[in-house]
């Protein structure tokens, strides 16, 4: 099911033509209305007229979160305040919040992309949509809300908290779709079970989960314990909030609403564009936004992208789930390595735990990478041959994922330090003398 069949299934040529026109228009608007952009363009020696098609996007300067902070709160707005009808902001872990202003048109656009998201999962005007993302400055609640309204569904704006009451609402109101974080979905399922109920006691058919990373295992667990189909949503406040990319039934990545948010993958180090399938930093240009369009905004998320048409019939480019942040990137023997790529390999190997530590050393002029991998608790390790086979299997999986070789060292359960907060995965000993 499509919400906007024309935009979701247009040919690559049509999409490129549409993106070209929209990019040229956006470049002109920001140059004329956003002093920060005028300064950036002038410094780079670029005039709006230099951008003649989507291929010229690589001539444009990037925008990053530091510039947003420097121009907090309204420095990137491209229209007068009287045209801004809504402010949203990201929670922001450090420093200043990222503030986004929406015009009336931008709110409709938000409704459109979220409508595509909900429709791809099967939701229609017949549905009763339970929104338990937080409402407020955070984009989750209002984003899901506006999408559900756009498709004409019945919205139940529950927001967060009081899980037992949420379950009562799910049950009594006959909600058929739910929007929340994946971890909250699991918590609802757990609470439901504790209350002596199961999937048959509620009417949910599908759920749309985002705002935090989640795994395929979590999807299966959510689908099983709530008796629903679960779809991933991707978004970021700087673009619009949820709805930048969404999942279809093919589960082959997330479809980017690229007629509005033009994606690129770049090498975070050299800033050169990377081809489809190569992991790198995701960059977006929100070319149709009026309130605060951003050009080549660096998300710091690492993923791959493909422009191959999807089994579902959509031609919208697909991005992989973000596999980490550029801040964690290592360069080993000239190759960009993301610890999360190693984590992804280990998650597929049953005999190991997800705990690992990467040691990078320099021997002579060569970088070496050693990865300590913990055995899974209870793994019957008694045969040397099987351990060596396991080690070899991890080695070749890591090599095919990273493109460079690493030594694998299997270590006993509990060897690798557990951390409360952000796990430390890398010890780089190359600069130590």
């Amino acid at each position, binding site marked *: 099911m499509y919400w906007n069949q024309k935009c979701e299934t247009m040919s690559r040529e049509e999409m490129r033509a549409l993106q070209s026109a929209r990019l040229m228009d956006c470049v002109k608007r920001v140059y004329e209305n956003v002093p920060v952009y005028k300064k950036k363009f002038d410094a780079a020696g670029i005039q709006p007229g230099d951008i003649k098609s989507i291929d010229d996007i690589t001539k444009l300067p990037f925008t990053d979160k530091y510039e947003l902070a420097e121009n907090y709160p309204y420095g990137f707005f491209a229209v007068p305040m009287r045209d801004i009808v809504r402010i949203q902001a990201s929670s922001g872990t450090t420093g200043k919040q990222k503030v986004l202003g929406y015009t009336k048109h931008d709110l409709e656009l938000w409704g459109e992309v979220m409508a595509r998201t909900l429709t791809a999962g099967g939701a229609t005007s017949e549905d009763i949509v339970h929104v338990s993302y937080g409402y407020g400055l955070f984009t989750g609640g209002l984003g899901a809300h506006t999408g559900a309204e756009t498709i004409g569904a019945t919205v139940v704006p529950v927001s967060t908290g009081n899980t037992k009451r949420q379950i009562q609402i799910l049950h009594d109101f006959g909600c058929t779709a739910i929007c929340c974080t994946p971890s909250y979905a699991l918590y609802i399922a757990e609470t439901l079970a504790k209350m002596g109920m199961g999937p048959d006691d509620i009417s949910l058919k599908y759920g749309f989960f985002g705002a935090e990373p989640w795994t395929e295992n979590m999807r299966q667990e959510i689908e099983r314990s709530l008796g629903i189909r679960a779809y991933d949503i991707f978004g970021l406040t700087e673009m619009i909030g949820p709805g930048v990319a969404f999942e279809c039934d093919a589960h082959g990545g997330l479809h980017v609403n690229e007629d509005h948010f033009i994606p690129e993958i770049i090498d975070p180090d050299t800033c050169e564009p990377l081809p489809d399938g190569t992991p790198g930093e995701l960059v977006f240009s929100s070319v149709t936004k009026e309130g605060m369009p951003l050009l080549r905004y660096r998300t710091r998320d690492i993923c791959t992208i493909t422009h191959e048409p999807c089994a579902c019939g959509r031609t919208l480019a697909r991005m992989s789930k973000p596999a980490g942040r550029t801040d964690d990137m290592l360069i080993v023997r000239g190759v960009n390595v993301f610890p999360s790529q190693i984590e992804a390999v280990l998650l597929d190997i049953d005999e190991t735990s997800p705990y690992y530590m990467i040691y990078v050393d320099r021997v002579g002029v060569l970088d070496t990478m050693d990865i300590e991998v913990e055995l899974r608790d209870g793994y019957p*390790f008694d045969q040397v041959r099987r351990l060596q086979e396991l080690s070899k299997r991890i080695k070749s999986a890591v090599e095919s994922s990273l493109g460079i070789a690493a030594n694998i060292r299997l270590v*006993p359960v509990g060897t690798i330090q557990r951390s409360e907060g952000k796990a430390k995965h890398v010890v780089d000993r190359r600069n130590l003398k």
Partner: protein
Amino acid sequence: MNYVNQISVFVENKTGSLAQVTELLAEAGVDLRAFSIADTSEFGILRMIVDRPEIAEEVLKTAKATVVKTPVLAVRLEDKPGAMNHVMKVLAANSISVEYAYAFVSRDREFAYVVLRVDEPGSVAEVLMENGLQVLGNEELEKLQ
């Protein structure tokens, strides 16, 4: 049940790893009947036959060691030339392959035992017994002097 529970500990290949294990067992009063070490450049597997495997396992697990209990065969060897050869011939004749083997002697030195790790220890024990060999069970092991 004609097999004994071998306790294996997975250790990093560095000095002191083995001493930590043996010290824990000594403190718990567990008697080590036999042990063998298999090691590679990265890791080692310490395999042990002890008088009370359950206690050994618990002590090691409490100390957060990486432990696994594996059923192995402890076959009694007659104290005469060719005894080991007899065992090996029976295994070969029945196409039973041995993952690894090591030996120990009872404290009164009356008998020697060979520890065998095989697939399906239960049926292999039967084959050995049909060929006149004695295979220890866990209770006998505990009583063994």
